[in-house]
């Protein structure tokens, strides 16, 4: 039997509306898997099903080899031994920080409970706040107490529901770092929900991208970026240029050149997705494109170009440059395209 969490073809409905469709995934102990997708894609519902907060309609959930949901079984959340970190942290306002962390430790003796709570608080850097009350803490501190509380009973599975969305940008990076470190140090299987691709890339060992209740693609972060399964996944990790074309033979012709489309049949409609950093405009009086606008964005520069196409409306493209050779507005440019930043999908 497999360790960690296994979701086996889960489906869930609210009324007649399917919110989760045939989701299957596994999270191994020590692994951090991110459910990533736009709001309403079913990722939080999947998380709540794993916790037992929602009764599953179809499919099975097994936890460390034990069936906890499905086939007529529903183990309530209090018997699953999972930790849950909430978007609003959900600290109990009537208990102080230490009381919150001790809450899930009923099986221990009082001194052991206290010791474990203080250890956990020290781990998340909140050791000095044991006697403080939740309303006295900042958002970041509440998040850390929430993490300590969820981890204190040593759960076999941690579930994180948008745990950083309430924090401001600068604090978020730091807390993200610390959270990942604590989770890894505890070696717990973790399933985390987020809508922020950068956060998912940063935290996750693997990412499952969800849309309309389905897992569209599940892989290591770098692979999702380099080998997206469709235009939706490609577009999710940043703005892309999308061109439509027809397959001729084994390739497609676009204003950016000819790209191989060996998977698609002759004559099929195709979508060509090009990442902005894959296009490099080079000043060239004979070039096919005209620079419309140049916007320095700090580390990189966004360049908008227009390519004239015979017998068709001109095509607007966005390029992202990090080098020093930046063309000026109104320049005529030639476009160099990096083949590994171009993806051809059925249209």
């Amino acid at each position, binding site marked *: 039997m497999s360790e960690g969490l296994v979701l086996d073809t889960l489906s869930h409905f609210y009324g007649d509306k399917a919110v989760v469709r045939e989701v299957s995934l596994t999270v191994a102990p020590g692994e951090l898997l991110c459910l990533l997708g736009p709001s309403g894609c079913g990722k939080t519902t999947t998380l709540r099903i794993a916790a037992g907060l929602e009764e599953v309609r179809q499919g099975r959930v097994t936890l460390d080899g034990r069936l906890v949901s499905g086939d007529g079984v529903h183990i309530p959340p209090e*018997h699953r031994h999972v930790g849950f970190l909430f978007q*609003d942290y959900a600290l*109990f306002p009537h208990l102080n920080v230490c009381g919150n962390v001790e809450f*899930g430790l009923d099986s221990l003796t009082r001194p052991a409970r206290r010791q474990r709570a203080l250890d956990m608080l020290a781990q998340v850097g909140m050791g000095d706040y044991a006697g403080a009350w939740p309303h006295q803490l900042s958002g970041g501190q509440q998040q850390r107490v929430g993490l300590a509380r969820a981890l204190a009973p040593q759960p076999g599975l941690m579930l994180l529901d948008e745990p950083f969305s309430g924090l401001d940008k600068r604090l978020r990076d730091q807390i993200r770092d610390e959270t990942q470190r604590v989770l890894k140090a505890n070696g717990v299987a973790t399933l985390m929900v987020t809508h922020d691709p950068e956060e998912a890339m940063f935290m996750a060992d693997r990412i499952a991208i969800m849309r309309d209740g389905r897992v569209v693609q599940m892989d290591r972060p770098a692979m999702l970026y380099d080998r997206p399964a469709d235009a939706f996944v490609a577009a999710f990790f940043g703005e892309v240029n999308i061109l439509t074309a027809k397959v001729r033979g084994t390739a497609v012709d676009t204003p950016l050149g000819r790209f191989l489309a060996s998977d698609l049949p002759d004559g099929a409609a195709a979508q060509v997705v090009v990442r902005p950093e894959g296009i490099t405009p080079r000043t060239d009086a004979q070039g096919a494109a005209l620079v419309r606008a140049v916007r320095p964005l700090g580390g990189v520069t966004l360049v908008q170009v227009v390519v004239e196409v015979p017998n068709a409306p001109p095509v607007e493209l966005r390029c992202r440059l990090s080098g020093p050779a930046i063309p000026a507005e109104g320049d005529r440019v030639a476009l160099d395209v990096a083949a590994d930043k171009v993806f051809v999908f059925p249209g």
Partner: protein
Amino acid sequence: MRSPDSLPSRRRLPNPWVVVTLVLCLLVALPVLAVCANLLTPSLDVWRHLAATVLPSYVGNSLLLMLGVGLGVGIGGVGTAWLVTMCRFPGSRVLEWALLLPMAMPAYVVAYTYTGLTDFAGPLQSALRALFGWRSARDYWFPELRSLGGAVWVMTMVLYPYVYILARAAFLEQSVCVLEASRTLGRRPWRAFLEVALPLARPAVAAGIALALMETLNDFGTVHYFAVDTFATGIYRTWMGMGQPVVAGQLGALLMLFVLALILVERLSRGAARSHHTTTRYRSLPRIPLRRARGVLALAFCAAPVALGFAVPAATLAAWSWHSEVTADDFLILAGNSLVLAAVTGALAVTVALVLAYARRLHPSRLVRLAVRLAGLGYAIPGGVIAVGVLVPLTLWDRALSGFLERHFGLSVGLLLTGSIAALVYAYLVRFLAVSANTVEASLAKVTPGMEAAARTLGLGPLATLRRVHAPIIRGSLLSAALLVFVDVMKELPATLIIRPFNFDTLATRTFTLASDERLADAALPALAIVVVGLVPVVLLSRAIARSRPGDSP
């Protein structure tokens, strides 16, 4: 840690929370349904007799009473709320909470007090006669308090706070979003108020008037004492005097149509009021300073209801209490009865309300929501109607039970529940459950779904979560919910009169019977006790209002 797979599946069983909720709601809604069922029972003869004799006066008097009280509380409530919220004049800060004091006064107590003060032998007329040298009642004209007009006056004095509270809250809420906008569009403060704030507060005012009118229909003590024939007195007389429970039920059902109309008005008004919150930001209200004559006029207008609705009757009761012939022993028994009834009902109502509200959170299905709403209906239904609705099914049950026991065991037990304390508590629960339910439900919102889920994932079952997370967080609100019910039970008159066991008296019923026997001074002591207890929630409410000064804090 128990192994998960050792636990049985719960999926196929009906959820216990849902079952308990539905049973509780059915029990609480039963009297209302029983009254409605009376409409189906034919009793044409008595009905025709009633329709030919007293029904027109019941309907007419009830409508006139509602019209008068509606106008009175509308003008009084909006006027006072407007002045203390929008203007500054001497005493306006104190009046902000003092205007609530008349809420502590049951209307029937005010009615007795003023009757004692203003009748022919009372101090007011005696003083006038002494002053002007009049000899008998023929020498001068004095308004007759014991009339429809007197009832309107008395009820306006104690019911206007319903309008005052809601109108004041509405004015405060609008402060930034609309008043300043209208000022920037060139309106002077007074015109901005008349053209913008007042129309916007209309839903709140309508809701307040609807609540006051529900209380008007519920009132039995005042109209009975003033000998004004309304539905409330009609139901009492038909039940107790004519011994016609079915007809009393039919009168009650007819009265419920009036109430239903008021509920609709109130609901629709609240719905409309909700859409008006365009911003949640608060800033200081542009209060208009009133000086000299205008300030004095404003003070007089706002101080009058406090004086007439609270200070004068309370002082009179206190003075009369010195001469009361109610003995200490007697008083202690009365107070004990009232306290025990009120405490038991308060605790019960809060427990039931907590179970219903929690079940609704756990299983927010349409059925559960409907059942909980049905259970809250009792508050709108006059006490007399609820009494009839409680006694009819209880009598049927008692008859069936005693018949069964007699047939099978040869026992003769008589009517067990009818006319018992249990029946009385049941009626109170039906009537006042909504009071505690509103408070409990609102406070339960303080426990976020996240906290609930956190407790569950940390190993607590639903009941343990309710005990260790919800209960401590909302403890204060539970207490105030119990308190509200407690005070309402202390004041309750019509249902108590109809249901109470033989020879069982509470402070309210003794006040009523003594006053009915024109022993006004003797009635003062129990009446004063009711008022003193009634002051507690008013003081709490005043403090909440004094603390919540959204106009002053960011």
